[in-house]
């Protein structure tokens, strides 16, 4: 099997790894498909693998009797499973599943644990990445406490748009309802406002981003801070 090459990987975090550190990981990186709805990490079960996402999107969700709600989103900027493993836990209470199919480089959790024990530079980078996830989660808490449906939807669409090629997103209202923790008719209502303002086009489950800046305006401060923090901490922007 051909080994993964660092600078060919679409994963932004992997590209930021120092080349000596990449060499430690390289032979352990296994290309895998991410299938729609596939579970990557089960709640409360030992985390076996971490995933450097190369395309597609993973969601971290919390579940209750009323259904599940997204509490984290990881795409080609991230490493699914980094948080528990870097912070010394062998499991997490939340489900990690594929919400948009794609590909990833999979690596065993103990390989990452050993590698960060041996390399302070790798530990530092991955901890910085964990910090960016934490900033995203805090931003979500802020948004859930303050912003209206349109702003939440706009922020979520921008986050998805960041993680795909092109301007089209295939998303049903039912799915958005679950992701945002908002009634489906609330999603439909908000979608109509974004279409009316020509920020997006929506036809038969196909959403096209027309105006990113316009969406950022609608997001009302909900989008941007975590993304800038990622660029600063991981890419030295």
């Amino acid at each position, binding site marked *: 099997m051909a080994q993964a090459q660092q600078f060919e990987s679409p994963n932004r975090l992997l590209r930021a790894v120092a080349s000596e550190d990449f060499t430690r990981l390289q032979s352990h990186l296994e290309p895998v498909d991410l299938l729609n709805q596939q579970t990557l990490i089960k709640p409360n079960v030992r985390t076996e693998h971490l995933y450097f996402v190369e395309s597609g999107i993973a969601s971290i969700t919390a579940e209750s009797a009323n259904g599940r709600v997204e509490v984290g989103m990881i795409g080609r900027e991230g490493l699914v499973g980094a948080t528990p493993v870097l912070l010394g836990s062998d499991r997490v209470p939340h489900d990690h599943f594929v919400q948009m199919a794609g590909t990833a480089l999979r690596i065993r959790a103990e390989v990452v644990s050993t590698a960060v024990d041996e390399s302070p530079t790798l530990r530092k980078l991955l901890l910085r990445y964990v910090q960016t996830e934490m900033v995203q989660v805090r931003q979500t808490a802020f948004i859930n406490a303050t*912003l209206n449906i349109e702003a939440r939807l706009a922020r979520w669409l921008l986050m998805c748009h960041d993680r795909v090629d092109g301007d089209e997103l295939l998303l*049903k*209202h039912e799915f958005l309802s679950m992701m945002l923790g*908002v*009634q489906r*008719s609330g999603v*439909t209502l*908000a979608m109509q*406002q974004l279409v009316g303002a020509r920020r997006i086009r929506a036809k038969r489950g196909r959403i096209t981003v027309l105006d990113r800046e316009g969406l950022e305006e609608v997001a009302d401060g909900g989008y941007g801070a975590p993304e800038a923090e990622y660029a600063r901490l991981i890419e030295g922007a």
Partner: protein
Amino acid sequence: MPHYFFNLRYGPGSDRLAVDPEGDELASVEEAHQHALQSVRGLIAGPPSHAVRDWFVCTFEITDEAGRHVMTVPFTEIVPDEDDED
């Protein structure tokens, strides 16, 4: 099972109707009615919308697969009548 669509009316005119593109499968008109009331409670308990100042002026216009009107459910229906003991 019949498929019902829950179109959200939030003002007069066609631009103030959020047309449900997906709908739900429900066994009967009565189940559709209960489903609408459940959605009303969820909307009122949830975050506000920029487009709606007052949820209580809204209605669900339920239609069937043929696009025929089935039932109108005003959001005020979830408010108990004054003489209701529970």
